[in-house]
Each structure stands twice: as structure tokens, then as C-alpha cells.
């Protein structure tokens, strides 16, 4: 069952990604991107990361990609809809890409991840997700732990342990990202808004 689901999602994610590369039409690319990102969300659910999966759907697929498509609609009029890469470039890039992929996959898969994890865990403690009792009713309910961690408290790591200092909480990034988003929003709005009016009208 798990294998079946994994195969479906993984195939869709990879297939979507490859289709993005091969497609020449921007809107189709966006569509394949949606498939790829959506299936990635499926993979996240399989990895017990339900909150991340939902965020992926809401922000990435529902927000970012819609934004991209919106951009396509504002810019890609007729002739620019399909800006073709030259075939020579494509072939070259795909060859290099395939080599690169081979390299990354071979390197990454050569590692004995489980062995490493066991080795590290034997010295540094068990990973928090495996801790029984914290995740309610089966696996994947990580919302509470993530919520607490975003406020800086790592109940999943620290409860019942003897530590001098609290484990890494994420209060700072959670807060500072909001400043960042504000700044970025201002910047994007500045660039996107119409050029300045020459004489300031008294009434909008």
C-alpha cells in the first residue's frame, strides 16, 4: 500500500518536473509544476508531515503558482507565450543534467543513511518524531509540536529529559520572517505599482 502510494506520488512528482523542463509553453509548464508540487505534498503526507503538506498545498500550489500564472497572463501575450530554447541548448543541458543527476543520486544513495542515523542516535539521542505518546492517534499529527516549536518551546524534545538548556526553538525565525515578508511585500508592491503620477491629484 505504502509502496503503491509512493510510486504514484513519486512518479507524478518526477514526471511533472521533467515535463516542466521539456515543455515549451509557459502555461503548460505551470500546470505541470502544479502536478509536481501537489504530488510532493502527497509525499509529505506519507512522511507524516501533514502540516507541511497542507502548507505546501495552500502556499505553494494555491499561492505561489497562482502568482506565477498571474504573471504569465500579464506578460505572455501571443508571441512570447512559447519562447523556445534552442534544441542544441536543450540537448546539451539535458546531457549535463543527466550526468549531474547521476552524480547526485549515486552520491546520495551510496550513503548508509539508516546506519548513520543509528550511529548518531546511539550517541545523541533518539529523533523526536519517534517518541511515543506525543503524536496523538497514530502518526502524522505534528501540528501541535510544530506550533509549540514555532513559539520556541520544544515539548517534543525537552519534556521529561534532563537538559540544561532548552532545545532549539524557532521563535526568532517565526517572528523575523514576518518582518521579512513585510519588507518584501513593500518591495514587490513598489515595483509592480504604476509609475508615479506627475502631478499629485488631490483626491484619489
Amino acid at each position, binding site marked *: 500500500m505504502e509502496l503503491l502510494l509512493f510510486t504514484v506520488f513519486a512518479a507524478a512528482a518526477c514526471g511533472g518536473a521533467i515535463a516542466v523542463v521539456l515543455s515549451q509553453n509557459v502555461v503548460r509548464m505551470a500546470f505541470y509544476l502544479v502536478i509536481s508540487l501537489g504530488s510532493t505534498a502527497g509525499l509529505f503526507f506519507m512522511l507524516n508531515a501533514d502540516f507541511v503538506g497542507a502548507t505546501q498545498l495552500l502556499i505553494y500550489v494555491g499561492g505561489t503558482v497562482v502568482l506565477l500564472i498571474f504573471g504569465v497572463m500579464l506578460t505572455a501575450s501571443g508571441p512570447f507565450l512559447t519562447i523556445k530554447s534552442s534544441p542544441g541548448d536543450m540537448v546539451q543541458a539535458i546531457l549535463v543534467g543527466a550526468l549531474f543527476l547521476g552524480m547526485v543520486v549515486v552520491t546520495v544513495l551510496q550513503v548508509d543513511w539508516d546506519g548513520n542515523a543509528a550511529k548518531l542516535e546511539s550517541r545523541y539521542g533518539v529523533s523526536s518524531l519517534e517518541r511515543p505518546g506525543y503524536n496523538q492517534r497514530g502518526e502524522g499529527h505534528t501540528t501541535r509540536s510544530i506550533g509549540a516549536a514555532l513559539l520556541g518551546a520544544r515539548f517534543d524534545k525537552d519534556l521529561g529529559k534532563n537538559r540544561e*538548556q532548552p532545545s532549539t526553538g524557532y521563535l526568532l525565525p517565526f517572528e523575523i520572517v514576518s518582518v521579512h515578508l513585510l519588507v518584501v511585500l513593500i518591495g514587490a508592491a513598489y515595483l509592480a505599482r504604476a509609475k508615479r503620477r506627475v502631478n499629485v491629484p488631490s483626491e484619489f
Partner: protein
Amino acid sequence: MSVSEILNGLIYGDLTRSIEVFCPEVLLCVTVIVLLLLRLFSLDHKIPPYVIALGGSVVAFVAVLLQFVFFTTGGAETNLGAGETLFSLFQLTEAGVGSPGELFTGLLMHDAFTLFFRLGLTFFLVLVVALTVLTGIPDNEDGPDFYTLLIGSTIGMMVATSANHLLMLFLGVEMMSVPSYVMVGFLKGRRSSSEAALKYVVYGAGTAGIMLYGLSLIAGLLGTAEFAELGPRLAYLIDGDGVTLSNPNIVVTLLGVMMVLVGLAFKLSLVPFHFWCPDAFEGAPAEIGGFLSVASKAAAFALLVRFLLAMTASGGGELESLNLYLGLALGVMAAVTMTFGNLAAYGQTNVKRLLAYSTIAHAGYMLMAVSAMLVITNAAESSGWSAAQVQDGAARCVEGLMYYLAVYLFMNLAAFAIVALIRNETFSEEIEDYNGLAHHSGTMTVLCVCMGVAMFSLLGMPPFGGFFAKLLIFASVWNAGSIHWLMWALVVIAGLNTIFSLFYYLRVLKAMFIAPRPEGVRSINMSGLVGAYVVVITLPILLMGASPLQNNLSATARYVASVLFP
């Protein structure tokens, strides 16, 4: 720990201390919000935005300065008089600012190194804001946007320099780059500006993605994202297997580190990742060019040093050869970068573009220090250096880097500021339009003289700060040569490069001072304030050169560098 223990520990221990140290960044955030509220309530016609921006950045600078003073002098014991009132105003305490250590449950690091960079960044922010006031690059309507971006980017850099966690590394890089993409394209009606921004954002986003992938590999391999644990865990993981390419753990680590270096190299505009730099600097206003060339480079260097030290610090000798290889690779990169930068600068006719290539070359010089640092930290066993010698040598490298950055702040800012100020009068940034500028009377002559100082300092001429900065770096790298001959070669290449660079810097000065003033140009009158500003930012170049202060300054840099190598 129980729930209440955890919460109490967070609220009364960690958070109070963290916010005390983080106060300057918070002040900057507040400035941003005040700027935006001002426009919301249409007060921006009554109070110009730059007043708020200048005020906010000055307050932030003062806050960091006090922290620095408090930290280096031991705080409470000093009797500075007015200082103590200020200390109490910002509520600095021995347990908070006074003691180095991690902040925000290990996300940020608070030590002299970080403080030094934050001090530099806030001071630089004040200078840049002042410059924009003089050149008037954002008008009143766009002011809040511009200063929001500028300050937002600075906050990102400050976060980046104190990053102690892989997530904060990425967050810092993103926070400092994304607003700067917009700033490069700030003159949105101009074709060149929008093109520069497009190139910058495309390369920037791409390399950031690659960096993130590298981070994910490292974090996954080591099972942690905290800097303090990276090195020891890596050493533990490859324990006994030795550093060979047949060990997949090593290969993945290298892959990850390489990818992270791609991201940082982009920010530093090192050679294979430098394409954006000349274009972005040419398309962007010179003020932004100055800001990016100094601030984002300084932050990226701080990150680079921290990250590399974290990855390679093992506590034992397990990672030695890894350090050596990394160090040598960076050394080669440094050599290529400076040579390329200097050679490419020759053919330029646009001053901003020339300066952009010059910043590439300077990044190369500074990278030498980092590479020597890595090579030296490897030296403990194989070259028979004693532990104290290693410490001292590595600290000297970082000292050189920081001294260089400090001088570079002023000389590069001076160069870009003068370009911007001249642009405001002559509407040109081409070298040939600089012909005979020194023959104008008044403030323009001051500008030209200051440009001369900045250029000679960039070049590395003896009486100026640039010379001592280069000297420190060259000496520390030469020192590393006894471990690996490549370091000696590096110094030789750098020396040759310095000579190369003479010609293109002099070309600008030749145009300014020697070339005759073209017929029929109108005379230029600039306000005295402009001259005063330029003099103020040029003076430190002299001070950091052959002056009694030089010793003090390098001693400070030395002290700051030594905290990295306990």
C-alpha cells in the same frame, strides 16, 4: 524538564537575554514600521521619510556601539560617566550583553565577532542613508519604500552575521538578498535598471536554491542544524574511516559544502558566480552598488567564516585533510577571482562597472584569508605547528579579513558615493566624462582628491588603510605557506594582481586630474555639505593607514578574531 520548567526557562532565561542583545535589530524593525505608518497616516509630507530612517539607524548604531563597548570593556566595571547612563538606558546587563553565548535557544551567536560585524553594518547603514539624503535617490514619495528595503536588507545581514544554525544561514541569506533584488531595480522606469534586477534575481534565486539543497544534505547527514554540533558530529560519523573519497559520507559532505559555497560565492561574487555583479552594479544606482558591494559582502564573509569553522571544527584531528582540501580549493578560487576581476576591469569605460570588477577582485583578496585560515587550522599534526601557533595563525587570518573589511567599507563607499555625487551633477558615469573634473573649483576638487585617496587605498598604496589591510592578509597567507606551498603561490599571484590593478585605478584618476577640462562644460557648484560628507568617509581610510590609531584598530580586530579560536 516539565512543561513549566521549559516555559520558565524560555521566558525568563533565554528570551530576556536574547531580546536584550537583539535590541538593535528590533529597533530597525520598529523604524520600518514607523516609516510605513507614516505613509499610512499621510504624514510623509510633513516629516520626510529620511529623517525617520536616519534617526532609526543612528539609534540602532548607538545601541550596537554600546553593546560593543560594554562587551569589550567588561561593562559594569568601566567608569565612562555618560556611558553608564546610556548602558542603563538600553538596559545592558552582565548576564545579557556582557556574556557571550547562544541566543534564541541556539539560533544566533552572540560574541565579539558578531558584534564587530553588526557594528560595522549599522554604521554603514547610517552612512548610506546619509548618502541617499545627499543624492536624493528616493524622493519623498518613494522614500518609505526605499528605506524599508534598505533597512530590511540590513536586518537580514545582521541576522546572517550572527547565524548559528543552518536555517538561520539560509534565512539570513534570503533576508539580505531579496530586498536587494528590488533595490537594484529601484529605478523602475529605466531599462538598464530592470535588466540588472532581472539578472540579479534570476541568478540569486537559483544559487539560493542550490545552497538550500546543500544545506538539506548536510543537515540530514549530521542530523542537526546547529553550527556547534556540525563539526563534532561529522568527525564522529567518519570516525576512523579517514577522509577519503571512497567514503560516501565524505562525498555527501563535500557535495553539501560545495553547494552551500555556491550560494555564498554568489553573494561574494567569486568567479564562476560573478556574472551578475557588473551588470547589477551598472544598472543599479551607485548608492545601491556601494551598499551591496560592502554590506552584503561583509555579511557573506562572516557567514562563510562561521560556516566553514563550524563544519571543520572537530575538536580532534579527524577532519584535517578535509580542511586542507577545502582551503586549497578556496585558495585557487581566490586566485582566479582576483585575476579575473583585475583583468576584466581594464576594458571598462563605465566607472560603476569598473568598480564592480574591482569589488570582484577585492573579494578574491579577502577570500585568501579564509582559505589560509582553513589551511592553518589543519596544521596541528602534519606540519608540526603547536596548538598555540595554529590558533595564532588562524586568528591572524581572520584579523586580516576583518581589518580589510573595515577599510574596504570606507574606501569602497567613498568611491561609490563620489560616483553618485558626480552623477548628480554631470549625469554621466562614463570615465571620459570625468575628464578634468579636478579643475573645477570648490567642492568638486575635494571630491576628486577624496576619490584619489579611495582609489589609492583600493590599490593598496602604502600610506593608506588599504595597504595595511592587504599587508595583514598577505602576511597571514604567507605564514600559511609553510604548510602548503600553494599559499606562497597565492601571495605571489595576489602581489602581481595588485600591480595589474594599478593601471585601471589610475585611469580614472588620470581622467580626473590630468586630462584637460573639455571645452564648454558648465561649471559645477556643489554644496559644502557634500564635501563634508565625503571628507568624513574618506578620513577613516587615512586613520586606518599610517596613523597612531592603526595599532589600536588592528588590536581590536585581533581581539575580535581571537574569539573564534578559543
